[in-house]
Each structure stands twice: as structure tokens, then as C-alpha cells.
């Protein structure tokens, strides 16, 4: 990691009664330490990267406490680490982005859940769902149910988060099952405060060693133990969990005057529900609502008598459950039926089956529920009027603006080393025709967006090469697969490369070697060098060779011309086999973060520094924007044409340019246009620089005067 988290680490040190002020994910991290966690692992990814990053920087604190922290190679590795809690009274936590991380982890998770645990095992998942999510839209809920892992969905308030983390460990230990806690994107990023408690040193850990290994066949996932384990889940663990949830009052009942109706919600959505009620005049600013609410901080398993108690005597209850399938709504309906309670359950009828429950969606949903339920004492006319007014303003805005505002999807950063590779692919496609590109997960997935529109499928992290295996034989031309170095070490080497090499898969693999797991925040990888600051534990090239790949070409990613030639060769060379191009170029964010302070210091001390950037001559640019279609760099933009005769805007390089050189490379490789120039600005010039500039300047000025004179004469 290039960033430092000293300030955040200080927050983790706070003791009894002190005030913590910070992000939700950091509060969760603090919660783990307060709960006496013995080991923490995980794999980075939004919205939970921060937990990993901060703990990476917190070694002294963790050493003092005797907590072991290690980032795993992937989520399967992280989930596997929870095995420590199967045999020993060690509290362990694993963290990742879900649903994708849960997918990767699922093999280990199933085995963990089957064996059961002695020490509390808590899985913190960042539920990357809705606006700002970067992955497929699925819920973690199904995973929990099918493996008998208990699922918590805490009400979003720091104090509640921290309390429930302690409860989660207790629940896990009381029921011998792992517990999954899901935190949504906004909850992870929320800034709030709570009073801290002292961190608790783990009973077993680095400072309190185990004396001997435990052996118990009942904990091995092999028949016949597996049959016993399945029965144990039903007969013992499930009832123990129900009992614990009820006893510790993990779910919250909020009473309200209008008690002929009620709302049951996932804990994470509680604030949105309460705010919607407030907007409709049915709750105050402190969340006290006139409608009773059952807030489910544990969404699996459901405690049937709690549900029955809440619903009994109510005409209608709204089930607020984000995403699909509507497991909770079905479960609530089923258990009310069994208890012979006739309350009408409204859920996906008024709320959408798919998509995030934003304030807007919630307000409409709650409004429609009330309109349908017609509770006494609620002014439905006023509610209808308010909803219509809001809708009216929105459509008025849309009418005035006239057309949908263009989307602004994420893209490659200024100077990104991955962009040139896609410029090169575009240029190769001009010669050889369109090529099927099996894309992968990482910053490079942005190639699928304008202006590149490259990438025909995305199957998962590190799966670019594997996902080409089926389609490749069906094309007469070779297929290109993409993989990042992050994906390579996460899964790509074992799943993709080893298989492809073993099976003699014919195709081209481009590995983006930008030196970090960049999309998740520039975490280190085995091959990270951090600009020379770190010696890698393994190199991609060596790993490929060891896997039996013969054709490997590492090259500088910014050299578009060279990249075009190498791609052409890889795509057209005779003889089957895997051809791998390693596109080397350090993540520009990391690079800039490192070199900027150095440059600033050099400038201040008066040392000579050459600054490079690119520019466009607006007099020669004709406004066709081919360059933009081949680059998409944020610093390459357009501006109004200064030429009064021309209407189309001209290309323009703004001052964010970091001088990566792609503009010039593309202009050259694509034989585009002579408008680009590169400027090397000598800051703090020395005497020689100044003398040279003077001589050149006067010679050039002399020539310029002559051409002026010639033109005037003509």
C-alpha cells in the first residue's frame, strides 16, 4: 500500500468511554478488536477494503493485543483461515466484498459451516448492491440459508454495529455455527460516532499459544461425520441460534400508535424506512414512528414467535426486503400461515423485486402500502398530494432539460497504463477485423465502456483466460483474453494459466501488470515492486514459465506501436499454444502518489526538473475526435473551437495531463493527425539550458521574421 493510515490506526486504540468519530467500516474494525478477535483475514474490495488497509498498517497494535492479521490470496483463502475456529476457542473474522467474494469462498464456507465451530467465526461481507456497486447484483442471503450460516443485517448506527459484532461472536459460539454480517455500501462509508470500549486481548492467539492440537473426527468433512453434521445443524445449532437471538433481543421492536398495521424490515434498511415515514408525517426526527416496526438485525434464521407476536392483531404488515428472491416475505407468509395468523403481508407488491431501496423507492413503496391498507388516523389525501408533487417536480426538471443527461461511467484514470493496451487492440482490429475479447475483473473492465467498447464477456476475477476456452475453438481467428496482475494471483494462474497450458489452449492472453491490486486501492501483490521499494516474492513471467507457457513477451504498455506489432504477431503466428503478453506499466495513481512529493521537494530545493505534458494545437485540430475514441483519457477532452469558421469542438489536453505519452503514441501508431505535441518544460533550468534556449530562440525568431516578410510581399 502506498497510502498511510496512521490516523485511522489511532482510532483503533481508543479505550473505555472515549469518542470514536469515523467511517462505518472502521467502526466495524474497532468492533472486532473490542470483541476479542484472535485472527483477521480477508480479501480487499469495495466497500470493505478499508478494513484490510487499516489493519495492514496497525501491526504494532495487533502485536500488542496478540491478534494475527493476514490478507489472503483470495476469498477462498480467507474463508479457509476460519478453520482455526473449528478446533479451537479462537475468535476469527474474515472480510470480503459480496456476492463475488462469497462465491469464491463458498467451497471453504460450506465445509466450515458443516464442521461447525468452537471459537466464534464471523464473516464480514460488504454487500456491494445498488448505486455505486461494481459487480453483479445478487444477495448473500441464499448462501447463508443453504449452509446454515446465520445472517446479520445490522441497523446502520455505529454503536449498533459494534454491539452486534460482539453479539455475533457470542451467537457463533452459542450455536457452533459461523455468522455472516452484511454491511451495505453506504453503511460502510457512513461517518458517525460512538463511545468505544477497551480492546480485548484474545484468549488464544499469538500471545497465548495453544498447547496441543485437537483431534475430533466429528469435525472432519467426510462421511459419515458429514451426515451427523447435517443433523446437528437442524437438531442443535438452529434451535440454539433461535434461542440466542430471542434471549439477547437482537431484533428490535419499535411500537407505534397506528398498530393495526406494521412494518418488518431488514436492519440495514431501518433508517430508510423511518425516514420515509417522517417524510410522510408519520415519524419524528428521532425515528419515533407512529407505525410499529420490527427491525430484523438477524435476517436468517427468523424467530417465528417474534414474527407472529408482531403480526398478530394487525390487518396488514409491509415486509421491506431488498433484492430477490423474496426469501423473507415467503418465510413470513409461511410461518404466519402455520401459526394461523391472517395478517396480510405486503412486500414485493408495492416495492420492486429488483434493485436498491433508495429513499425514493422506499417513499413510494411505503406510500402505496398505506394507500392500500387505509389505516385510521392517516391523512392519505395529504400523502398522495405530496407524492404527486415530488413526481411533478421531477418530471418538470426532465421536461426542461429536454433529454436524459449523459451518463458518466467510470473510466481509466489519467495516464493509466492499461489504456494504451486497448488503444492497441483497437488498432489491431482495424487491420485484422474484430476479435473476441474475454475480459476480466479489474480496472481493465472499463475497456467494455466507451470509447473502447472492447470485451465480449466478463465471468469473474481472474477468469478471463478460462472464459475463452469454450469460445476460442469456434473462431477462425484467435481470441484475446485479458487478466490483471490482481486477477492473475487471485485465481488466474491456477484456474486459467495452468489449465490452458496443460490443455494446449490456443489463444492470446494479455496480462496488465500495473503492480498492484489497483481497483481495490493499490494493495500489494506477490509481484509488486512499488517502483523498486519492494522486492517481489514472485514474478508473473517466472510463474508463467513454470506453468509451461513458452511464448511470453513482457513489454512497456505505453509503447502502442510495439504493442500493436506484438499483438499482431501473437494473433497471427502459426502453431497452436498460449501466447502471453505482459503489459508492464505501474498504476499511475500509485506512481503519482509516490513521485509528486519527491518532485515538489526537488523543485523547492532548486534542482532541475523536467516536466512533460502533451498538448493539441487547436489551429490544426479539425475536431474529428479520432484521438479521443482511441484513448478516452480524462485529460484529453474537447473545448469550443477557437476558429470562428468551425463549429465542431477541438480536442484539448487539460492540466491534469501527467505526460504518459499515450496521445503521441496513438497519433503515431494510428497515423492520426499532426496536432499533438509533446512539451518538455525545464523547471529550474541551469546555465546551459538557458544559453541553449536563448540561441534557439533568436534563430527561430529570425526565421519567423523572414516568413512574415515573405507573406506580406505575397
Amino acid at each position, binding site marked *: 500500500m502506498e497510502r498511510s493510515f496512521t490516523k485511522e490506526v489511532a482510532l483503533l486504540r481508543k479505550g473505555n468511554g472515549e469518542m470514536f468519530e469515523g467511517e*462505518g467500516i472502521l467502526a466495524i474494525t474497532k468492533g472486532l478488536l473490542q470483541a476479542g478477535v484472535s485472527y483477521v483475514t480477508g480479501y480487499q474490495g*469495495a*466497500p470493505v477494503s478499508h478494513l484490510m488497509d487499516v489493519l495492514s498498517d496497525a501491526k504494532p497494535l495487533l502485536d500488542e493485543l496478540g491478534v494475527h492479521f493476514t490478507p489472503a490470496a483470495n476469498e477462498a483463502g480467507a474463508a479457509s483461515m476460519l478453520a482455526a475456529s473449528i478446533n479451537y476457542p479462537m475468535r476469527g473474522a474474515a472480510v470480503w466484498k459480496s456476492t463475488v467474494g462469497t462465491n469464491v469462498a463458498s467451497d471453504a464456507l460450506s465445509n466450515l459451516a458443516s464442521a461447525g465451530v468452537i471459537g466464534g467465526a464471523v464473516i464480514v461481507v460488504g454487500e456491494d448492491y445498488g448505486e*455505486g*456497486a*461494481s459487480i453483479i447484483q445478487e444477495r448473500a442471503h441464499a448462501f447463508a440459508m443453504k449452509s446454515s450460516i446465520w445472517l446479520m443485517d445490522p441497523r446502520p448506527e455505529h454503536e449498533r454495529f459494534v454491539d452486534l459484532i460482539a453479539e455475533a461472536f457470542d451467537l457463533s459460539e452459542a450455536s457452533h455455527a459461523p455468522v455472516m454480517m452484511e454491511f*451495505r455500501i*453506504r*453503511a460502510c*462509508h*457512513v461517518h458517525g460516532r460512538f463511545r468505544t470500549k477497551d480492546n480485548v486481548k484474545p484468549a488464544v492467539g499469538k500471545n497465548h499459544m495453544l498447547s496441543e492440537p485437537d483431534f475430533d473426527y466429528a469435525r472432519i468433512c467426510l462421511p459419515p461425520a458429514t451426515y451427523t453434521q447435517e443433523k446437528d445443524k437442524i437438531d442443535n445449532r438452529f434451535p440454539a441460534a433461535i434461542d440466542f437471538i430471542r434471549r439477547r433481543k437482537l431484533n428490535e421492536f419499535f411500537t407505534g400508535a397506528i398498530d393495526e398495521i406494521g412494518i418488518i424490515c431488514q436492519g440495514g434498511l431501518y433508517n*430508510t424506512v423511518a*425516514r420515509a415515514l*417522517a417524510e410522510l*408525517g408519520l415519524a419524528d426526527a*428521532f425515528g419515533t414512528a407512529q407505525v410499529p416496526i420490527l427491525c430484523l438485525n438477524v435476517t436468517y434464521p427468523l424467530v417465528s414467535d417474534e414474527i407472529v407476536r408482531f403480526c398478530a392483531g394487525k390487518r396488514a404488515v409491509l415486509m421491506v426486503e431488498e433484492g430477490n428472491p423474496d426469501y423473507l416475505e415467503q418465510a413470513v407468509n409461511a410461518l404466519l400461515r402455520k401459526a394461523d395468523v391472517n395478517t396480510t403481508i405486503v412486500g414485493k407488491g408495492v416495492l420492486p423485486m429488483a434493485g436498491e431501496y433508495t429513499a425514493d423507492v422506499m*417513499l413510494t413503496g411505503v406510500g402505496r402500502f398505506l394507500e392500500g391498507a387505509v389505516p385510521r388516523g392517516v391523512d392519505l389525501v395529504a400523502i398522495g398530494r405530496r407524492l404527486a408533487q415530488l413526481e411533478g*417536480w*421531477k418530471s*418538470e*426538471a*426532465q421536461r*426542461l432539460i*429536454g433529454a*436524459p*443527461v*449523459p451518463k*458518466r461511467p*467510470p*473510466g481509466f484514470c489519467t495516464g493509466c497504463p492499461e489504456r494504451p493496451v486497448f488503444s492497441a487492440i483497437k488498432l489491431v482490429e482495424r487491420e485484422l477485423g474484430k476479435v473476441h475479447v474475454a475480459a476480466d475483473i479489474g480496472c481493465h473492465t*472499463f475497456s467494455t465502456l466507451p470509447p473502447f467498447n472492447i470485451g465480449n464477456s466478463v465471468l469473474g476475477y481472474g477468469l478471463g483466460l478460462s472464459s475463452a476456452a469454450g469460445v476460442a475453438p469456434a473462431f477462425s481467428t484467435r481470441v484475446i483474453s485479458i487478466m490483471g496482475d490482481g486477477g492473475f494471483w487471485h485465481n488466474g494462474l491456477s484456474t486459467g494459466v495452468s489449465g490452458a497450458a496443460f490443455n494446449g489452449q490456443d489463444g492470446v492472453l494479455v496480462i496488465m501488470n500495473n503492480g498492484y491490486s489497483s*481497483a481495490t486501492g493499490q494493495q500489494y501483490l506477490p509481484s509488486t515492486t512499488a517502483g523498486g521499494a519492494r522486492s517481489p516474492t514472485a514474478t508473473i513471467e517466472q510463474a508463467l514459465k513454470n506453468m509451461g507457457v513458452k511464448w511470453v513477451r513482457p513489454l512497456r504498455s505505453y509503447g502502442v506501436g510495439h504493442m500493436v506489432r506484438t499483438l499482431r504477431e501473437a494473433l497471427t503466428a502459426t502453431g497452436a499454444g498460449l501466447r502471453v503478453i505482459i503489459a508492464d506499466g505501474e498504476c499511475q495513481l500509485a506512481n503519482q502518489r509516490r513521485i509528486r512529493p519527491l518532485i515538489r521537494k526537488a523543485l523547492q530545493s532548486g534542482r532541475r526538473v523536467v516536466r512533460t*505534458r502533451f498538448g493539441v494545437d487547436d*489551429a490544426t485540430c*479539425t*475536431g474529428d*475526435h*479520432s484521438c479521443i*475514441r482511441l484513448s478516452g483519457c*480524462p485529460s484529453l*477532452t*474537447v473545448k*469550443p473551437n477557437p476558429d*470562428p469558421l468551425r*463549429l465542431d469542438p477541438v480536442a484539448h489536453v487539460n492540466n491534469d495531463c501527467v505526460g504518459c505519452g499515450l496521445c503521441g503514441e496513438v497519433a*503515431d501508431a494510428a*497515423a*492520426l*493527425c*499532426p496536432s499533438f505535441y509533446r*512539451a518538455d518544460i*525545464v523547471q529550474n*533550468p541551469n546555465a546551459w539550458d538557458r544559453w541553449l534556449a536563448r540561441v*534557439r530562440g533568436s534563430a*527561430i*525568431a529570425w*526565421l*519567423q521574421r523572414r*516568413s512574415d516578410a515573405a507573406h506580406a510581399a*505575397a
Partner: protein
Amino acid sequence: MSERPVTVLIAALGGEGGGVLTDWIVDAAMRADLPVQATSIPGVAQRTGATTYYVEIFPATNAALGGRRPLFALYPSPGGIDLMLASEALEAGRALENGFVTPDRTTLAAATHRIYAVVEKAAMADGRFDTSHIIAAARALAKQPILFDLTRGAKTREMSLNAVMLGVAAACGALPIAREHFVAAIREAGIAVEANLAAFDLGLTLGEKGVPPELLSVDDRAPRPLEAATQALIGNIRAEFPPEAATIVEEGVRRLADYQDLAYARLYFDRVRRVASFDGELAACVARNLALWMSYEDVIRVADLKTRPERFAKMRTEIRAREGEPVTVTEFLKPGIDEVSAILPRRLGAALEAWGERRGLATKLHLTMRLKSSNINGFARLWLLARLRRWRPMSHRFAVEQKAIEAWLDAIARTAPRSPELAREIAECARLLKGYSDTHRRGRDNYRRIFAGAVLPALERGEGGAERIRRLRQAALADPDGFALDRALAAQPRETAKAAE
């Protein structure tokens, strides 16, 4: 209902400092002992995408509330925003579109400069969104609109937008926080404190006294007004031409005198006179496209423009080179057969071009030249190239272009009296001709296909065809590979057959 959280929604682009702005507001609220919550959805948006930050502040101090804790929401709700801060025009539009700006409560502070989205930039002609409608919607729907464009002032352009925004937030009256807390928040953060405080002060002025005329937003798409001609090169243009066209003709005359010589400017004037009596809009359109076409880009023109003193002066400003800092300039030139044959004498150039086409080398054979125009050697080479101007009228491309120009003008002049609409469409086709190398080749081929496939048939028929030409032109600009144009031409087989002739 008076007791409700005050809400702030910040719309920004990744990397614009929206997070820092949020931190400042949160810090200021905490200094005022007000309960506050902030959240965001950075995710992948930190990579240049659009993102939002959301803050709720409760307008009663923690002390006054005792143990009571207000309930904060994680989502901004339409109709529930007190202060909407947008860092760019399109993002303000997005906020409006989503219902976050409502007349009952929202103060909308928006920076209205443009940072173009990829789809706007990548269009083959002008893909810029018309933000004047967004401004109109903002004025109509915000309770208090504070719209400003910092990029219009040389000094304000350099200021950090998030600190200006903080000043606006502090002064606009929407937040229950005293000014000194914001100042303290900036000082506490400890980064670029003085610069940020200066920007904050500007924000205070904007929020208090309103936006001064020099920072009001302008429509980036509005054509720039032409400067009055300093000298009338030929006769009295204003008397002869309709007012819409006169300034363009003046500019055209000036351009062509600069491009070639006075005689060439005179040729332009004589040509453009043929349409002087027509409808003003048509005359303007022809005058514009004719001037651009006649000043087509060849290597002589490029070398000429790249060796001018004003070019270097402009460049130094653009790249922010300070006084006394030497600059090395590298040009990326890659002339191919087309560029070389263009400036060769007629027969020779034509022969070279034909050879290149026959051998399929026209798009393949290029000479990479990385030329340092700031060195004496490099500059002198460009300078010599620029001096070939005198021989341009004898060149191959000159002859080709003049012939095509005459055909185009004839077509316009013939159709204008009976169908100004058709004439206008024909005139606009010249807009396809631009760029260099492959881009130019593509534009020229598209133009030729449309001219043969739609313009000539329309001339023969003597009626209709305007709509078809417009459609074809739009198709030509829809994608760089010409798929849309292929489809559009194929849509009417009868005419395609003629195009193939």
C-alpha cells in the same frame, strides 16, 4: 416539523475533492456541537465517474438534545434536500433529473463549467450536451440558485472548487453552522490552508452577494461572435451579403489571404458571391464551408501554423511554462503517400497517388517523423516546408480540391432557387471533409459516396432528396467504420445502384 435534519447532497466527479468538502462540512458541524452524519458511494466512481456524498446535520446541539439522538438517513431523498452542491453543469442536471432540487427548500450551488463525458467527447462532430436547458431548469426549480463558472476568470480558474463550494455553503444560509467553524475546519485539515481560505472567501461572496456577471455561466455551445473585420480586403462585403453571412465572408477572406495569398482570397470572394443573393442562412453556410474547404489542411498549412510565433506563445500559456523556463517541443508527424502526393506537382502527384492506391499502400506506408520544433534544425525543416506555400496552386491536391469545390458550388447554385432546403443540405455535406490521413480519407470517401449516391440523383430529378441527404450525413457521422452509412445507402437500392456507377 421544524425539527428535522438539514441535508446536503454533493455531486462530484471522482478525484475532484468531494470527499474533502464533505469532511470539512462534517468537521464544521462537529465544531458547532451539532449531530452530523455523512456517507458516500465512492466505489468505482473514484475512477473519474460521477459520485455523490450525502450529509445530514441536526440543527440542535448535542448539549441541548441531552441523550436524544436524531435518526439520520443514508440516502438523499427527492424533495428532501436543503443544499445541493454540484461541481459541474451535467452533474447539476443529474441532480435536477433525480428530483433533488425542489422549489420548496433546495438551494442549488453549482459550478457550471463543463467536464465532458466520454460520449460527448468521442462524437465525430459535436456531441456536447446542451447545458443551457440545465441552467434554465436550475433557475426554474431551485429555491435559491447560485450558478457560477469559475473557469471564466483567470484567477478564479486556479482556485480549488471544493473550498469555493464550502464558502457558498457557509454563506447561503442553508446550514445552521457559523462561519468560523468552516474556517477552523480548513485550518485543521492543514492542507493548502491559505489557498483554500482565499477560495473559501470567494465562495462567501458568491453566496452572500450573488454571482458577479463575469462569473455567470455562458453556453459553451454558442458560436463565438466574430470580431469585426479590421480591414475590408475586397469591396463592401456588408452591403453585398445578408447580415448572417457578412461576418463569415469577412473571416473567410481573411483566412484565405492568410492561407495562400490575396489572389486566392479573391477567388473565394468571387465564388461566394454566387450565393450572395440567397437566403442569409444558406449564404452563411456556404461561406463557412467554402472557406474551410478552400483552406484544406495539407502539410504546408500544418508547417505554417506550427512555426508561427503566436503558436509558441499560446502553447506556453496552455502548458503553464513560466517565464524563463525553456520548453522542448516534439511534433508527431506521420505523412503518408496521400500527404506527399498532395503537395507534388499535378502529374507527379496524381501518378504517386494512383500507384499507392493500386498497391494498397495508401493507408499503410507512413513516414514517422518526430520533429523537435523548438530546435533550430527541426524548426528550419518545418519552416522550409511552410515556404512551399507559393507552389501550392500547382500541386496535385489543389487541382483535385478546386474541381470538387466547383462541382459542389454548382450543385448548390443550381438547386438554391427552387429548393433552398436541398441546397443547404448539399452545402452542409462539406462538413464531412476534415482531418488528416485516415480521418480525411474516410471523410472524403463518405462525401463522395453521398455526392454520387444522393446529391447527383437529386439534381437529376430536380426535386426532393434533402431529407435523404441529411440522413446520410448523420449516418456518416454516426460511427467511424461507416457501418451506419452503408446501411443508410443500402436503404434505397435504386439510388445505391446509381452511386455505384
